[in-house]
């Protein structure tokens, strides 16, 4: 790296979104530099590692070592304890995300991107009109990186959004606080991630058990910030495990995270800066899953940079992203708002509806919007809520 080099693109953050962006920009001819705060890519993990097959494969062909287990369906547990099983062969994967994250950044390096770890972006170089690059701390030294475009894939770093002049404030009820253990000794059904709903178990969120193979599982919980009620997310997790599993188990890793489920920012392009992944709040507000949309937003942003270098408007990034994901994210955002208002009794009723329509059956594809529409239509009070809240659903 020479002092006066001007990159086409500086990417802040080497998670799935930043890696994907750097890869697709470099592959399409852009001169890219990716900066990452951490020493080791992928560590610490802050993720449950589930992804749909289409969500991953629309951006990357997975290598075998990215996959911990294949997902062939799911078990849903209503608050009453009733278990609903849906079969969906090839639905998705439970990832070895640390490996995948490192590999994607590796792929971008092979495509020509420069990678700087232990490099924390702290500000932008701004000329009053556009952003000309970033200021960063690289192993205790202040550096400047000049670039025509900047991609913000910095996950939780709201300070950088604030410095762009965007208001990164997220209402407390739109934040899910999560704790997860990687455990050995808890019985799992290989191929079937489990989801547990209930206002006692996980108010404003849900608990999950994802099989990781070789007897391991990701056991986690997400709770709405405003529903913590003086308790910690990890307290909910310990209680959940204590009440559901009587076997001896060992925790081999402790993982935490905060997920913004407010839905995407209105604009993902701000002057010559693009917002990717959680920085753009593009994670799925219904499931809290963030990897697929981070990969996709990174890919579209990387491709948009390559096109912008030959004269197109950078806005094609946000237009393309919303064309693919806008309606889904909006429906999922409101669906979550509806779901968190339901009592356990209503959740049980909803569970019975899901059981009747989907329980024990095998599907080759489930469209989430159709799924939500179908189950909401069958419950009178939820239908009422849904009609009011989701015009998009009934268009």
């Amino acid at each position, binding site marked *: 790296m020479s002092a006066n080099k001007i990159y086409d693109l500086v990417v802040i953050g080497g998670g799935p979104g930043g890696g994907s962006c750097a890869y697709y920009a470099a592959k399409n001819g852009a001169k890219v530099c990716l900066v990452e705060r951490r020493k080791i890519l992928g560590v610490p993990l802050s993720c449950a590692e589930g992804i749909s097959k289409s969500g991953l494969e629309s951006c990357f062909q997975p290598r075998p070592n990215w996959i911990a287990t294949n997902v062939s369906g799911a078990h849903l547990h209503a608050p009453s304890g009733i278990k609903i099983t849906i079969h969906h062969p090839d639905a998705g994967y439970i990832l070895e995300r640390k490996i995948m994250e490192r590999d994607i950044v590796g792929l971008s390096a092979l495509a020509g991107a420069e990678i700087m770890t232990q490099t924390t972006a702290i500000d932008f170089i701004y000329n009053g009109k556009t952003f000309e690059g970033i200021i960063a701390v690289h192993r205790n030294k202040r550096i400047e990186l000049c670039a025509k475009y900047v991609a913000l894939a910095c996950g939780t770093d709201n300070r950088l959004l604030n410095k762009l002049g965007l208001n990164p404030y997220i209402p407390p009820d739109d934040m899910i606080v999560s704790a997860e253990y990687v455990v050995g000794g808890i019985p799992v059904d290989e191929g079937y991630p489990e989801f547990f709903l209930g206002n006692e178990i996980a108010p404003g969120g849900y608990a999950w058990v994802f099989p990781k193979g070789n007897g391991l599982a990701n056991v986690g919980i997400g709770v709405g910030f405003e529903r913590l009620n003086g308790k*910690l997310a990890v307290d909910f997790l310990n209680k959940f495990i204590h009440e559901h599993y009587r076997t001896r188990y060992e925790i081999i890793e402790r993982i*935490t995270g*905060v997920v913004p489920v407010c839905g995407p920012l209105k604009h993902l392009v701000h002057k010559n800066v693009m917002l990717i992944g*959680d920085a753009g709040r593009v994670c799925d507000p219904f499931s809290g899953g963030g990897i697929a949309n981070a990969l996709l937003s990174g890919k579209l942003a990387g491709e948009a940079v390559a096109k912008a270098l030959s004269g197109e408007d950078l806005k094609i990034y946000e237009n393309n992203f919303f064309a693919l994901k806008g309606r889904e994210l909006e429906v999922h955002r409101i669906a979550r708002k509806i779901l968190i208002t339901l009592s356990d009794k209503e959740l049980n009723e909803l569970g019975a509806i899901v059981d009747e329509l989907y329980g024990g059956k095998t599907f080759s594809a489930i469209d989430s919007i159709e799924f939500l529409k179908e189950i909401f239509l069958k419950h009178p009070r939820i239908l009422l809520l849904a009609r009011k809240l989701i015009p998009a659903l009934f268009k």
Partner: protein
Amino acid sequence: MIILDKELCTGCSGCMMLCPQFAIYQIDEYPMIDKSTCTLCGVCVSGCPVGALKFLGDGMNKE
């Protein structure tokens, strides 16, 4: 003052997402709080999934 218990902190940086004042930053492994902008609102204290952020003097003698 809010202090960080590094034994509990997983380094997830979720507190940076939680802080309504954007007063938390992270240069390396652990988050740091900018005392000039922190209003001691306590959102990070109640929101940290593992309770690694605490008001000074609060809960220090427990366990």
